[in-house]
C-alpha cells in the first residue's frame, strides 16, 4: 500500500511540473534524458563487468586464436572502457545498437521483430486482468471481511505467489493436453508459422488483415492460455489495489450523503466510488502493464513465444552483449514512457492534480 501511495504522490508532483510555466517542461525533458543516460551507463557497465567473454559467443569455443583476436578487435573490445562507452553512446544516439551476434541482424531490427509478440501478449493479458480484476476488487471491498472478500484474496494470493513456470505447464497439461480447449505452444500452429508475412507483427491483426479467419482463430486459440496466465498474475495485483482504493472511497462522506439521498447501492458503488477509484487505478494498471511487457520471460519460454523477454534472456545466456544492452534500453524506455503516460492520464482524469 505504502509504495502505491508514494507513486501517486510522485505522479502528482510530476504532473504539476508538466502544467507549470515553460521551464518545468524543460525540467521534465531533462529528467527523462538524465534517466535515459543513467540507464545507458548502468547497462553498459553491467555488460562490461560481467565475467563473460562476448568474443567467444561470436566465434565459438573451437575457433583459433587468430580468429579470436581479430574478432575481439572488430568488436572494439581493445579500446579503453571509457572510449567503448563513448562509441556506444554515440552509436545509440544515431539509433544504432550494433549487430546481434546471435542473429546477424541489427539489434533494433531484431527488437522491432520480437516486440510485437510481447506487446500482443501483454496487452491481451492486461485487458483480461482489468476486466476480471477490477470487478473482483470491487466485489471484495463491498463484502469486506466476509467470505467473498477472503475468497478473492486467496484467489489473488495464489496468482501472485504461484511459480508462473509451474502454472504455465499445468495450464498446458489441462487445457491443451487433456481438455483440448486451446492450442499449444507457439503463436500459431507450427506448420502455419511461415505462411504469415508480418505487417504489424501482431498475429491477431495480421491474420485479419490477410482475411484469413481460420488462421485468426488459430492465433486466438494459441494466445488465450498464455494471456490468461499473465492476466492471472496482474489480476491479483489489480484486484488487491482496487479493493483498497474502494475501501478508502466507501468510507468517505460523499458516499454517506449519496446513501442518504436514496441513490441505489449499485449506482453508488459502480458510478460514484469506482469513478473516483479509476484515477489512481490508471497508475496501477499502467505499472502492471509495463511489468508484463518486460517480465513475461518464463511465460515466453514455456509457450515458445518469440517475444522480447525470450530474446533478452537468450542473448544474456549467450553473451550477446549488443542485444542485451539494446533490449534493456528498450525495456527501460518503455518503463519511462509508460510512467510519463500514466502521469499525463492522471492529470487529465483528476482535475485536482492540475491545481
Amino acid at each position, binding site marked *: 500500500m505504502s509504495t502505491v501511495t508514494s507513486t501517486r504522490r510522485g505522479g502528482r508532483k510530476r504532473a504539476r511540473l508538466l502544467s507549470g510555466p515553460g521551464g518545468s517542461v524543460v525540467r521534465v525533458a531533462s529528467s527523462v534524458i538524465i534517466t535515459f543516460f543513467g540507464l545507458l551507463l548502468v547497462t553498459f557497465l553491467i555488460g562490461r563487468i*560481467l*565475467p*563473460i*567473454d*562476448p568474443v*567467444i*559467443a*561470436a*566465434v*565459438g*569455443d*573451437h*575457433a*583459433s*586464436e*587468430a*580468429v579470436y583476436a581479430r574478432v575481439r578487435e572488430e568488436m572494439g573490445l581493445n579500446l579503453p572502457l571509457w572510449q567503448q562507452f563513448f562509441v556506444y553512446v554515440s552509436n545509440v544516439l544515431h539509433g544504432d545498437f550494433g549487430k*546481434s*551476434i*546471435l*542473429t*546477424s*541482424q541489427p539489434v533494433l531490427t*531484431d527488437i522491432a521483430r*520480437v516486440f510485437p509478440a510481447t506487446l500482443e501478449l501483454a496487452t491481451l493479458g492486461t485487458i483480461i486482468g482489468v476486466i*476480471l480484476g477490477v*470487478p473482483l476488487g470491487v*466485489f471484495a471491498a*463491498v463484502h469486506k471481511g466476509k467470505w467473498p472478500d477472503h475468497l478473492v484474496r486467496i484467489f489473488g494470493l495464489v496468482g501472485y505467489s504461484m511459480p508462473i513456470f509451474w502454472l504455465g*505447464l499445468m495450464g*498446458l*497439461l489441462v487445457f*491443451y493436453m487433456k481438455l483440448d*480447449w*486451446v*492450442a*499449444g*505452444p*507457439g503463436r500459431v*500452429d*507450427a*506448420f*502455419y*508459422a*511461415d505462411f504469415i508475412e508480418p505487417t504489424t507483427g501482431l498475429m491477431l491483426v495480421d491474420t485479419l488483415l490477410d482475411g484469413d479467419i*481460420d488462421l485468426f482463430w488459430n492465433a*486466438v*486459440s494459441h494466445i*488465450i492460455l498464455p494471456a490468461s496466465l499473465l492476466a492471472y498474475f496482474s489480476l491479483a495485483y489489480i484486484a488487491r489495489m482496487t479493493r483498497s482504493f474502494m475501501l478508502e472511497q466507501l468510507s468517505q462522506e460523499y458516499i454517506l450523503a449519496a446513501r442518504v439521498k436514496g441513490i441505489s447501492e*449499485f449506482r453508488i458503488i459502480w458510478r460514484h466510488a469506482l469513478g473516483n477509484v479509476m484515477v489512481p487505478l490508471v497508475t496501477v494498471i499502467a505499472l502492471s502493464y509495463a511489468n508484463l511487457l518486460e517480465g513475461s520471460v518464463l511465460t515466453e*519460454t*514455456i*509457450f*515458445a513465444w*518469440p517475444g522480447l523477454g*525470450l*530474446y533478452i534472456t*537468450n542473448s544474456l*545466456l*549467450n553473451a550477446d552483449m549488443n542485444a542485451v544492452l539494446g533490449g534493456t534500453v528498450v525495456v527501460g524506455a518503455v518503463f519511462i514512457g509508460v510512467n510519463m503516460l500514466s502521469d499525463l492520464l492522471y492529470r487529465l482524469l483528476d482535475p485536482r492534480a492540475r491545481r
Partner: protein
Amino acid sequence: MRKLIAGLILGTSLATAPLSAMADTPKNALVMAFSIDDIITLDPAEIFEFSGAEYSGNTYDRLIGYDIDDVSKIHGVVAESWDISEDGKTFTFKIRDGIKFASGNPLTAEDAAFSLRRVVKLDLSPAFILGQFGLTKDNVDAKITAPDEHTLVMEVDKPYAPTFVLYCLTAGVGSIVDKKEVMEHEKDGDMGHEWLKTAYAGSGPFELNKWTPNESLSLVANDDYWDGAPAMKRVIIRNVTEAASQQLLLQKGDIDIARNLEADQLAALKGNDDINFQKRAKGTVWYLGLSQKNEYLSNPKVREALKYLVDYNGIADTILAGRGTVHQAFLPDGFLGASNDNPYKLDVEKAKELLKEAGYPDGFSVTMDTRNTTAITAMAQSLQATWAQAGINLEIIPGDGGQTLTKYRARQHDIYIGRWGADYQDPNTNASTFAWNPDNSDDAAAKPLAWRNSWDPKEMTAETEAAILERDTQKRIDMYKDLQKKVMAEGPFVVMFQETEISGVRSNVHNFKLGPSFDDNKYRFVTKD
C-alpha cells in the same frame, strides 16, 4: 450484483469453449520442435554450430560424403571421383554433371573452387579445417584451381593421409555455393558474406524458404535435386527451447519430431505407441579437464585416482538416461581408430590407495567450474559425492556457459567439466585437441585443450603430427589407438561419456536419419503415412 456474477460465468464459459486447434500436420510436410537458437549464420563458410551444421547438411552439397552407418566408407557427392598424385600432395576431383543450383545456374568446377577459396579468404571460425593443409589467403588462388568445367585441383603442402584431407572436405566448409549468385551480392569485397548470412545459394535437396532467428527455420524441397527429390515438400523447424513443451506438442501430434527431450520427457513418453525413438551416438564427449597448474592434480597418482572415482554407470543410467553411454577414450565411437576400451569403473578403495601413494591419505580440497545446465550440474554433484568417499572435498563453482568457458580458456580453473564436440570426421580433430600441445607457455599461439589444462603431452605432440602424414590407413588407426591409450592413462582428462542424440518421432514418420555428426541428420528420406 447477481447479474455481474452471471455475466462473469457466461463470459468464462464462452472463453473456454473449444477453439478447435487445426488438424494434424500435413502429409507432405515435416514439422519439428528443436532448440535452434544457436544458429547465428546461414553462410556455410561461417557455420560452426550444431543446428547450423544440420541446416547446411540438408541444403548444400559437398564434394565428398561418407556412409553414416560406416564412416570409413567415403564416397563422392558433387565430386564423382578423385585421384591423388604420387607424391600425395595433389588431389584432382571430377565434378558431376547435371547439378543445378536453386538459382538455375549449373554447378561447375569453378563454383567448387570458388567455395573452398572463399572459406580460406573469409577466414571465419571453421576456416582452420582447410587451413590445416597449408592453404592461406595469399596462396589459395594458386593452390585450388578449376582448369576446366569438370575438374577441380587442390594442392596441399604435405603428403597428408588421404583420409584426413577427404574427411575435412565432408565438413560444412566443404559446402559448394553458387559463385554467380553469391558474387552478385558482394559488398566491399566480402564475397557475399553479409548477404549469405541470412540467404541461400546452394544445390542441396532442400532450399531455404525463411529463417526467423530464434523463432523458426523453414525449408522447401528442391524438386529437381540431382539425386532424387525428397518426399517432404516442406520442413518447418520451430524453436522450442523448453523440453516439456516439446513433449506436449509431440504427444498431441502438433509436431512430428521433438529433438531435445530430456530424461523426464523420455521416461514420460516410454510405452506411448504413437511415438518412436531415434537414437544415435554423436561425436561429442563429456570430460573433466584437470589443470596441471594445481599441485594436487599434477600428481599422476591423483589423476589416476580421480579416474576411479566416477560413478560411470550410475550417471549414464540416471542423469543421462539414454542420452549418453560410458566412453573413456578421447575419440568418440564411430571415428576412424576410435577405442572402445573402458578400463575404469567406480572403485573407491583403489582410489584411496592411489591417494595414499600420492601422499594425500586424507584427501584435499579442489574446485570445479560447472556450467548451469541440468545434466552437467547433476554430474558434478554425483562426482562431489563419490570424491567425498575418498576424502576429496570438491567445491562446485556454478556459472553460465560464457563465464565458465572464459575462465577455462584463461587457464584459471582447477577442474572444468565440459563437453567437447568434434569439428570434422577425421580422428585428428580430437587428437590435436587432447594429445597435442606444441607450446605450453601462457602466450602460445595454439591453445588446444591440452594447453588449457597446462599439460605438456611430450612425445604425443609429435605422434599426433605424424599420424596425419601416415598414408597407410591401418598404421594410422594403430597410431590413434596408441594415443588414446596414453592419454587415458597419463593425461589430465577424465573422459566419461559419449553423447547419444535421441529424437522422439511420431510413429507415422519414417526414415528420419540421425548421423554421427549434426551435418548428417538428414530429412531427405523422410516419408509420412
